[in-house]
């Protein structure tokens, strides 16, 4: 008897969780729509995923994802096509000359506190 009850409770509880998740996901999409996109399309979805994937504990990191990934890349975490090219050939481009002698007006120099 108690076993049957426990099974029923488990099923009901499972259904309750599913309903809550559906409601939350719908609300998350609603948040994007109601704020005119200000909340960020992926932000609420990220929060939703964060609750279901324990390893995504720091949801705040999502906002910095691109910047963080780019910083890692700059630190040499992954290679790029440009790196795989001959650096001397790339460096050859550094001989690109300036367009010409710059024209710097006196009013510009005055505002710059120059001589």
């Amino acid at each position: 008897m108690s076993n049957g009850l426990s099974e029923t409770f488990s099923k009901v509880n499972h259904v309750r969780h599913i309903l809550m998740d559906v409601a939350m996901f719908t609300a998350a999409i609603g948040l994007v729509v109601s704020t005119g996109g200000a909340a960020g399309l992926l932000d609420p979805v990220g929060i939703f995923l964060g609750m279901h994937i324990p390893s995504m504990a720091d949801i705040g990191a999502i906002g910095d994802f691109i910047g963080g990934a780019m910083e890692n890349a700059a630190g040499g975490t992954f290679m790029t096509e440009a790196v795989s090219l001959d650096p001397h050939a790339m460096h050859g481009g550094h001989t690109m000359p300036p367009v010409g002698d710059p024209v710097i007006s006196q009013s510009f120099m005055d505002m710059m506190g120059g001589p």
Partner: protein
Amino acid sequence: MHRRQFLTTLAACAFMRPSLVLARDAHPFAGLINPDTGRVYAPQAGKFTLAMFMTAQESYPGCGGAFLGIQQTLAVSPWRDQIAPVLVMPKISDQTNGSDIRNLRRAKSYDPPYTILTGALPDVVRASEAVEGAFFELNAQGKVNGHTLDAFLLTPAGNMIFHHRADDYFTLVDLLDRAMRGCRRSLFRPACL
């Protein structure tokens, strides 16, 4: 975050005016002046900013390489029409060597030319501090004698989305492309506005 916290946050956002959701600090360069126009800096609508922080004097031998890296990147970048190169520069009277303007001459030499922004030293320093990773160095006399050689990509609203280290400009084209694509894919991300 628990469901209850999530729902509470959600409800708070739902009743908040979009202007509050979008509220952010002013642009980091808002207090600076463009000496070419004599006007206070106003970001160009929809344009990203690739910013550098340099003195008019050549503080390091690497200054020229940093300029070239940016120029070459913009020359071949598919996003060049959407990126404006900006140079935040203290007044010549605020640097240690008032007769050296080699960096300034470089900045004015290239096409497209950098938009140079300057101002009172506290404003210039404040602008650098508002962009994470950027800095100017001052000596004991309060004169600028150093600066970062890194480049920073800012959104039209002034959010820094990409910090490029100066030690490798070979990858800048590729990395800049990724950063721009990342933002253009998710137009509504607050960080990309």
